[in-house]
């Protein structure tokens, strides 16, 4: 690969009257683990489809490893592995046969395919299920095999769409470890995920996309800077908060109060927060406190601030699709 792993300029895509992607630029360096975050309908999958050659942009240009995708899409596809958000291997084939077939699509010879498939089944903890049909795999096993299939031909660039959605904790952890391992080996990874914590832990840089536009791209470090060393306390109230926020700020100087919802009070501070005194203060004034949760501010808060979309609701939307 020459040049950046991915360079996309002015990508646009419409579906009838709907603008799915409205002119976005993406540049991912070689060896980078790049996160692509956004709510459902933001344009993540459409962007990924355009980058991988499954869809043609209405406008803009894409280069993969220096190859112009509009001129030579198949050469670019040789450089990439794609893990879609669905476990889309062949249900009738065994795990081993699915891997061998994936390798064959990239022109791997029989011995190379068998050797690599055996290695990957070992690496992904699927040796015992290698001869079992894919349809009999659990969700977690399916995701692992789909990732294994995507790296059969050892692509220098890997696209992953929600690799850990809807699977068990053990499989998620294993996938994260595998991605970290691939990243260390120099594989460039383009990752879309709804798990912001996962992106924060894994990615070098992150782009937030909302309504078909990239609203911010930066390193995780820089994105976290505004919330670094900040603490938050979320207080759930029964029947809302009758006390004016100004009164609370006078009573607790140095704390920032915000009413997130009519019955949810959010408090932020540069110091670790003590919930007890605030809860007592509220209860003394007849406010019923249901729950008070303390936490350190994270990328999730940055995401909410930048996109104006609740990370929780984004996750719920996605999980709804799996049910």
């Amino acid at each position: 690969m020459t040049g950046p792993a991915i360079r996309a300029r002015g990508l646009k895509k419409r579906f009838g009257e709907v603008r799915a992607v409205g002119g976005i630029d993406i540049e991912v360096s070689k060896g980078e683990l790049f996160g692509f975050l956004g709510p459902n309908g933001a344009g993540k999958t459409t962007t990924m489809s355009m980058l991988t050659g499954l869809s043609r942009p209405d406008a803009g240009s894409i280069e993969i490893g220096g190859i112009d995708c509009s001129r030579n899409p198949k050469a670019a596809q040789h450089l990439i592995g794609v893990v879609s958000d669905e476990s889309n291997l062949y249900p009738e084939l065994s795990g081993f046969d699915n891997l061998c077939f994936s390798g064959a699509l990239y022109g791997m010879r029989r011995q190379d395919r068998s050797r690599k498939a055996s290695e990957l089944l070992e690496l992904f903890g699927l040796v015992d299920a290698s001869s079992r049909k894919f349809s009999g795999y659990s969700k977690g096993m399916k995701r692992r095999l789909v990732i294994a299939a995507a790296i059969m031909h050892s692509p220098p660039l890997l696209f992953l769409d929600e690799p850990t959605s809807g699977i068990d904790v053990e499989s998620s952890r294993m996938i994260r470890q595998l991605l970290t391992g691939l990243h260390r080996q120099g594989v460039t990874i383009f990752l879309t995920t709804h798990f912001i914590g996962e992106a924060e832990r894994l990615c070098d840089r992150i782009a937030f996309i909302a309504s078909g536009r990239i609203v911010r791209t930066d390193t995780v470090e820089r994105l976290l800077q505004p919330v670094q060393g900040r603490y938050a306390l979320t207080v759930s109230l029964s029947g809302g908060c009758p006390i004016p926020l100004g009164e609370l700020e006078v009573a607790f100087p140095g704390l920032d109060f915000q009413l997130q919802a009519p019955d949810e009070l959010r408090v932020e501070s540069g110091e670790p927060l003590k919930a007890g005194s605030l809860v007592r203060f509220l209860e003394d004034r007849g406010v019923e406190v249901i729950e008070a949760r303390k936490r350190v501010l994270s990328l999730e808060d940055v995401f909410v601030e930048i996109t104006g979309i609740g990370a929780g609701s984004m996750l719920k939307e996605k999980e709804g699709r799996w049910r």
Partner: protein
Amino acid sequence: MKTWIAFWSIVRKDMKAYYLKPPNVSWGLLFPLAWTGMFLIRSGQDTHSLQSVLPGMIALSVLFGTSSMLAVAVTFEKKARAFDRLLLSPIPLVLLMLAKTSGAILFGMFNALVPVLLGFWFADLSGTDWSMVVPAVLLIAVVSTYLSLLLAILATEVFEVQTLSNFVRFPMIFLCGLFFPVTALPWFLQPLSFMLPLTYGVDILHAAIQGEQILPAALDFAALAGFCLLLFSLSLHSINRHWIG
């Protein structure tokens, strides 16, 4: 060389996953057996009668053999997004679709063997021109495969493609001269017959087996080849437009 590895792997995978499955093989045998058996009983073992229905039986077996599984397999793979894996691979689209349809073509030709073998047993096929039968069966298999590929691309659900296939296949049984000559059709239906590819394939088979034909064989072959090219091009265009668009 590397592209051919992908090509053969797709053919082999489809044969393994779809065409060589016991229910499909048994159906592939049962369907032509039942139809040929039915016509055999109807003809009262009259050799000439059997010879007259054999071209239709061969064409029918190939038509149903090629179109039944391919359309379902393609629609199913597209819906399950397994087809995306093929589109994402570096194999050129033309070669990919040729590979994807090869299994159906081979299976359709295999289906043609059943009426042919029964014909050997119950009829006198000594005058049959096999140098015409074989390429005709191949072209009928190719043309019906590409027709069903086009239908599969236009449909989104498996039940849709099955309905669409029947909507196209069953009128062809009556309009393409399978069991009675096209010239015996009412005059206003005859132009419709010549718009259907199977008419030309059946005409070649009638010429090869019975020595009776409506059009010159060269014209039949040219028409069939033209239909193959047209349907394949339309399929590629539809994939480009609907699936990669």
